[in-house]
């Protein structure tokens, strides 16, 4: 297992290298000019040229790449063109909202979607099954921002139970932190609950027809025990795969939800950086997302061995 993990970690290096080169080149080849954006809408050509010179954007692309990649190899991702802050510091500030939202969303998703899927499978063909599947279709058909606005209208504007927007850091009080994440997490979880409930139902349905389920029932085990210990445990691998992907998507930045609720997370940072052509920030966050995807996939693969003893690396 140790060797497998080491090999997987090493195999991420070429992936990250390719991502680094591609992102760097794509940014330089698209029609954009950070200097013109920094200078402001009404700057003269001379002002723009002065800033371009100062940022080193007049250097040949190869030289710019060598300077940047040299810094990255030493753990220095450079300084944001705009915020005059180290990109690593900027990302560090934005991690907390994104991780907080991801954590609460994934908790909601797992706690709601998996039981819903199991219940639907157990009641296959009944109105309960149809209701859960109907909710699933609805859940991943409605755009996230529509769900967000509906929830805001009901719980924040009309009932005034929850804040409309904003984020409070954990260090400023866990109560306020949690309160401000309820609506965004609810908004974001709808689509994933719908998706994972459907996946769970399908996976559990498949194993419910297996011989060992019939044997368990014949032994007189309770239906709950049959469903949880035998059916769900054996259906867990595909469900875990989807949950892993969900985590990766959430960490990769949930742009719309962060925009609607003004959560200063990685999603908003990425969009702002792209719109402003903040090259150092874009390059760093894309590398980070790539690394997160690879890492989460690795963790999911390792988790398989605990769920299914037949899987060995």
């Amino acid at each position, binding site marked *: 297992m140790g060797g497998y993990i080491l090999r997987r970690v090493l195999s991420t290096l070429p992936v990250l290298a390719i991502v680094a080169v591609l992102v760097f080149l794509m940014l330089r080849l698209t*029609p*954009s*000019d950070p200097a*013109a*954006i*920094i*200078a*402001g*809408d*009404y*700057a*003269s*050509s*001379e*002002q*723009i040229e*002065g*800033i371009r010179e*100062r940022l080193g954007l007049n250097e040949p692309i190869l030289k710019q790449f060598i300077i940047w990649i040299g810094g990255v190899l030493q753990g220095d991702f450079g300084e944001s063109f*705009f*915020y*005059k*802050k180290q990109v690593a510091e*900027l990302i560090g*500030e*934005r991690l907390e909202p994104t991780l907080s939202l991801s954590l609460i969303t994934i908790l909601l998703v797992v706690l709601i979607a998996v039981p819903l899927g199991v219940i639907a499978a157990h009641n296959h063909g009944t109105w309960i099954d149809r209701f859960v599947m109907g909710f699933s279709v609805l859940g991943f058909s409605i755009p996230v921002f529509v769900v967000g*606005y509906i929830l*805001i209208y009901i719980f*924040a*504007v009309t*009932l*005034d*139970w*929850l*804040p*409309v*927007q*904003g*984020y409070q850091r*954990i*260090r*400023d*009080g*866990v*109560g*306020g932190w*949690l*309160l401000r994440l309820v609506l965004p997490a609810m908004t974001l979880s709808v689509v994933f609950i719908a998706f994972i409930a459907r996946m769970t139902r399908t996976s559990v349905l498949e194993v419910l027809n297996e011989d060992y389920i019939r044997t368990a029932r014949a032994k007189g085990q309770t239906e709950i025990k049959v469903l949880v210990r035998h059916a769900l445990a054996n259906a867990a691998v595909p469900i875990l795969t989807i949950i892993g992907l969900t985590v990766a998507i959430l960490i990769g930045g949930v742009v719309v939800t962060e*925009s*609607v*609720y*003004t*959560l*200063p997370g990685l999603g*908003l*940072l990425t969009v*702002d950086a792209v*719109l*402003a*052509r903040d090259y150092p920030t874009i390059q760093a966050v894309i590398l980070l997302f790539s690394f997160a995807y690879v890492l989460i996939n690795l963790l999911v693969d390792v988790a398989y061995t605990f769920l299914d003893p037949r899987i060995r690396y």
Partner: protein
Amino acid sequence: MSTMRRALAVLTAAATIPLLATVANAQKTLRFVPHSDLKILDPIWTTAYIVRNHGYMVYDTLFGMDDKGEIKPQMVDTYTLSDDKLTWTMTLRDGLTWHDGQPVTTADIIPSIKRWAAKDSMGQKMFSFVDSIDAKDAKTFVIKLKSPTGLVLLALGKPSSNVPFMMPKRVAETDPNKQIEEFIGSGPYVFKRDEWQPGSKIVYVKFEGYKPRSEPPSGTTGGKVVKVDRVEWRPIRDHQQAVNALLAGEVDYIESPPHDLVPLIKKSKDIYTFNWNPLGNQFTFRFNVLHKPFDNPKVREALFYAFNQEDFLKAVVGTEEFYKLCKGMFICGTPFGTEAGFEDKLESNFKKARELLAEAKYDGTPIVLMHSTDLQVLTNLAPVAKSLMERAGLKVDMQSMDWQTVVARRSKKDAPEAGGWHAFLTSWVAGDLLNPVMAGFVNAGCDKAMFGWPCDEQIEKLRDDFARETDPAKQKAIVEAVQKRVAVYPTHIHLGQWYNPGALRNNVKGVVAAPAPVLWNISIE
């Protein structure tokens, strides 16, 4: 806050252990939603309006512009101009200090003026007349001119980007092409960099050492009295959410809600609107004169006849309450506002436009019109322009892109078919357009002009004459001459004035009308 929300807050707080107590908030905090997030902190390094607005919080100015458009002293106490009009002597007010407690002296003021003048086009123009600036003592400095000019006060009191904000000597001596790294001013608020959360919160606290002038506030002049303890800028990128937050009492003041949400705001009995910028803004169509067919002034002139302001204003602003037709380039209702040269233009006279195109032998070259799609106030402009141009007989290739791509592309001089451009539309704050030297698009200095690069000796001579003239009546005559010249050598087309009122909760009082959203004098009751 509703009972349920209080209950939820108590429950969540009780169910968890607060790591750090929230700061006791007995102090008065104004929560303000700016038009965008603040990223850059140096108002001299960039012309971006959001950074200018940040500048007004932190820094002070030598002069300002009052609500009548007149320049009045601000940090300056007394000032005189010698009889030969070549020497300005200015003395600072007593009691001016920086946020670190050090006194403001002429040793700070002189490098601040020089750094600003190195970046700002009007500053550069003013400095072309300056022979020297020297300190007489810690409070008095002298500006000696090579020849008389009426620009000194207009430039030092200009209300919009780049505003000549004063900074401490060690900061002001930063290379103008490099961002400053220390943010100490002598303005009414102190910037709290340690509380700055890029993307969500920018914090300022009252500067207890600020000595306001005794006059009432007026524009960017007068007493900058701070009546709150703290101001938090809360950038909310989703306009609907900003309004929701205002309705729910989570914020106090939205700088510029979009016009289509104003009816929703007006329905609330807890909210009112206030036009804090009575000068307003001006939509503008900009030509690139380097390439065919806009290298021919007659083709450009044809658009003065093809366009009308109302179509553009209705397409974006909608209701007449928030726009004004104005054929004056230099803003109607201000000292240099005039309609000279435009009496028969901007009325969609397509017959006349077609005649001019025929006279110019327009050969059907498609006009590459850049269409910005991501800024609400600009999105509808290009389709209107395309429609009117086509009705006049021009071929138009409207290319849609985000605003930042427009910004990057407009600085390219390449041919339109090779990634360049013919035209785009934008909006200016009226405070930037009050005279021919200040208004960037009137600069016809060829390579030295703004993107579009108009090149006309007559306009440049008139702008120089304006700069040299010190008599306001004669200046007005020169402005009329400039506008008449632009009517036959078009640099851009002004498409009407529009207004964007702010939205405030009823308990927020005392907003000062100015060309920028200034946050002094505001109280929360």
